[in-house]
Structures are given as C-alpha cells and as structure tokens.
C-alpha cells in the first residue's frame, strides 16, 4: 500500500489573478513504506513546491489542485487548516536544508523534541522525555541525555541536522519529506546523514521523499527517482535504470553535466588536429 499517493498535482502561485504562474504542472508519484523516492531537478523546477504543497505550507495565495492521498484514506487537497495541523508533523514530517533555520536557537533540544510529541501524542512529561532521549540515540547524537538540555548552537551542523531529523521522527510519521537535507553539510558529514536516512527507511518502514539537486546523493540512497523540469516530471523509474539507461534527453543532459562524466582539462590534448581540418573540407 502506498504511504502517499500524489495524482496530477498542480500548484499555482501569485497574489492576484493577473500574476499567477503554474509552478507544478500535473505531477504524479507514489511514496511506498520503506523506500526512498528521490525528486531531482534544478532550482526552479518545482521540486520544493511539490514538498510544500504536500505539507499544506504554500506561500500565501498558493492554490493546489489534483489529489494527495495519505495511506489510501485521507485526501489532503482541500483539507481544513485544523485537520491539516493534526497531520503535519504527526503523520507527515519534514526536514529542511538548513537545520539552523528549523531549530529554535533559544529553546533546548529536549524541549523542541518534546513540544511536538506532547501536542500530537498527549504523553506526560516523563514519558516524553524518555522518548526524546531514545530519538536522539536513534539519530546517533552522542550522549543523548546530556544533549536534551543543550541548545542548538552547542552542536555542529551535522549534529543539528540529526536533531532536526529526531524532531521530525518524534511522532513516528508515515512519511518524511526531506528537502535538500545534506546540501548545507560537508561531504564527510553528509555521508553520515545518508546512512541514517537509509536506515530509517528500512528499519522503521518510513516512506521518504528526498528532494535534491545532487545526483550523487540520489544515486547513493534513492530507490526510485523522478526527474523534474519546469514543473513536470520528465522521467521516473527505479534508480539503476535512470542512471544507467536514461531515456529523456533532459535526464541525459543532467547526467552528462556531472563532473564524474567529464574528462579532466588539465594536460588535455589539443582540440584541433590536421586530420580534423582536412575532414572539414
């Protein structure tokens, strides 16, 4: 059964009728428990807007059409704000690019994890605290008990992103939307977060939508890949097929532009040779 089923999703942005633009133009995709679905594309392709539309967090004036169904039972398009609040952060959680922006600088890590849990799960304080420490251990933050009483600035960027993931997991969601979760991190730190996302999908049967422009990251953790361009999905399929046998010209173009696909320019042989110029005649 699919955890989240998106069908012909359309998103329009703009304050008034004369300035509307459709940024997502009818996309469909399925998120399956235990699998990571990668959404690739360049800036402005509509991938982040897709994630925000699922969360019901579009900028003011944003209009969503089509269908987003959670666990085959709840239609999210057109859901009332109050009902959406019960789902957001509870059944569907999110992690963003910049952990510093998603964590409150003046509230302890423990309080930030417990906050969402108490709102959605109605746990008492002691149980919530125990669970918060378990979550920090799950995302491999060292010394979870001590970490609960610290503030975000006392952690490195990588640890902050782990904490943001712990907060996202607090209510044991069905779906995790991760928008460029490793883009702000160094590669050695990124590697640790990718391991964590992979383990969370497999061990907790979590359905993850991973939005990233980084095809290396995509290749490392995604099970399925959709490539977006100008608000449309131009190609979709299992990871290995997309990378080894891309069918859409745009996917091929993206892969060919990666540094891995290119020859070094240092000590490159000269471009023109005499045989070439003879052939041109």
């Amino acid at each position, binding site marked *: 059964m699919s955890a989240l089923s998106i069908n012909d999703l359309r998103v329009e942005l703009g304050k008034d009728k004369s300035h509307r633009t459709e940024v997502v133009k009818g996309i469909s995709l399925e998120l399956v428990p235990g699998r990571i679905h990668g959404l690739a594309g360049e800036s402005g392709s509509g991938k982040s807007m897709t994630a925000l539309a699922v969360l019901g967090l579009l900028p003011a004036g944003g209009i969503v059409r089509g269908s987003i169904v959670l666990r085959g039972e709840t239609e999210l398009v057109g859901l009332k704000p109050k009902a959406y609040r019960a789902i957001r952060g509870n059944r569907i959680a999110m992690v963003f690019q910049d952990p510093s922006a998603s964590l409150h600088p003046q509230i302890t890590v423990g309080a930030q994890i417990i906050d969402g849990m108490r709102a959605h799960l109605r746990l008492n304080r002691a149980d919530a605290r125990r669970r918060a420490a378990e979550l920090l251990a799950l995302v491999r933050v060292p010394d979870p008990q001590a970490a609960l009483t610290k503030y975000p600035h006392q952690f490195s960027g990588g640890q902050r992103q782990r904490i943001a993931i712990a907060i996202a997991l607090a209510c044991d969601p069905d779906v995790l939307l991760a928008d460029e979760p490793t883009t702000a991190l160094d590669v050695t730190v990124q590697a640790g977060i990718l391991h964590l996302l992979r383990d969370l999908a497999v061990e907790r049967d979590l359905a993850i939508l991973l939005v990233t422009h980084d095809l290396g990251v995509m*290749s490392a953790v995604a099970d399925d890949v959709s490539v977006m361009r100008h608000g449309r999905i131009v190609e979709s399929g299992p990871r290995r097929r997309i990378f080894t046998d891309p069918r859409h010209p745009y996917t091929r173009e993206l892969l060919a532009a990666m540094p891995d696909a290119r020859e070094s320019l240092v000590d490159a042989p000269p471009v023109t040779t005499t045989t070439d110029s003879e052939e041109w005649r």
Partner: protein
Amino acid sequence: MSDPGTTEARPVLQVDQLVVEYGGRAAFRAVDGISFDIRAGEVLALVGESGCGKSSTARAVIGMEKLAGGDVRYRGGAVAPLGLRTRPRELTAIQMVFQDPNSSLNPRLRVGRQIDEGSRAARSRGLSTEDAAYWLREVGLSRDLENRYPYQLSGGQRQRVAIARALAARPDLIVADEPISALDASAQASVAAMMRELCVASGAAMLFISHDLSVVRLMADRVAVMYAGRIVESGPTSAVWNEPRHPYTRALLGAIPHPDGEGILPAAPATEAPATWRELVPEALDRSPLTLPRG
C-alpha cells in the same frame, strides 16, 4: 628552465608560512602556517570543508585580512591591506570572484557598466581590453544582457557577470572563493571549466577555492587539501585524486557519492573527526606527479 633572474620564472603568488588569527588575546588560529605558490597560467585549488581556513587564506592573499604571521608576495612585493580607498593601480591586476554574486555586484549599475569598470582598471595599467559585449560572450552570456540590472538576472547569470568583470580587468592573478557553489549543479562543472580555459588562455594564475573535489579534479593543475588551518596534502591533481595519502584526503574522497546508479552509500567516518586527520604526513606533502603507463 628555472632562471630565478627572469620574472617569468618567479611565481605570480608566493605564500610563505601564512598565519591568520581571529579574536584578541585568546585568538583562534584559522590559518596555521601554510605555504604555496602559483605560477602564470596555472590553477591551484585549495580544497577542504567549512572552517578549515581556506576562505581566510583567500582573504589574506588579496589583503582583506591582517596577517598574524608569514608572508604573502605578489610578483615579489607585499600586498597592501585593502582599505576603504581605491586600490593602488598595480594591484588591480589581482581580481576576486566571490561565492555570492549578489553581494559583489552593484545592484544599481547596469551589467555593461560594471564590466566596463573592470576594463577601466586594465586600461589604467596600460593594457588593452575588449568591450563588455566581448566579455559577456566569453562567459557564455548574450550581449543583450548589457543593459540589464543584476536583479533582472538569474543567480547563475550574475556569477558569470562577476567573472566577466574580473576578466575584463586583465588580471594576472585571480582569487576565486567558492565561485561555483551558488550555481545549479548542472552548470558548476562547465563554469569551472570555462574559468580554467579563460585563465590559462590569458596566462593568469588562479587560486580556486572549493569544497568540491570532483569539480577541482577537472580544472586544477595542483591541489592543496586543508584541514584545521593546515595543508595536509598537496601535489598534482591527478596524484592526489588517484592516490590520496593523507587519512583526511582519503576520507574526503571516499565520502563523495558518485552518480553511477549503484546505490552505494559513501563511507562515513565513524566519529565526527578522527585524530589522524590532524596529523601531518610528510609523504602527502609536495607530491610528485604520478607516472602513468602510456597508451
């Protein structure tokens, strides 16, 4: 070949035991005694992760940072600290490209006029240069953009304008601090390649600062890997890329995920930063080129 008497043989930039510190009494040492030089027509990449001191090094090279120790020599002379006043004319031969084109371009000046400012710097040193349209074409932009303002351009176009302006000044040293990391992934490799080609063609030296080793592999003659304020490995790019010797370089290269579709998770260091990363490994420094079998 090496005739120390001629200006050709002398490196354009010589950095010797450079130290940069921040904060007063209990100062933090961001750059801890690093040395390198760059020759005309050569690209040296300084790579490392956030906080390793690579940007501080760039700022010290162009005179934006006070030296706490060591020496930076441009064509044999010291680089004057950058103040609020106009730079001495000779030093406009050093040009910078920064990560964020929004803060380096003047928002109230049309693109063509900004590039002309670079050309003016070249002419003031008695060099000929081309018009704005020419430099726009060189960086792969349409000349129609000449009359636009920076806000009318995309981020990638703005960074190309910043590069065009630097090139219009006919620099013989370009210091580029993460010039491609704000660009779309698909444009990064091609802009880096373009920067190398233009730099080599004009005989300028380039210090290219980046955290992205896979892009550096394409366009740098030599690489210096920095960790915690020191250079831990240095040498020809292919030697460092193909046979890294320092544990940190190995971890850095091992952590890069490759878009091969194999679903292979890159190796993650067990702890946040093993102690071996800080150790100096003599055989990782000043490496010689790999001797590859021909054929």
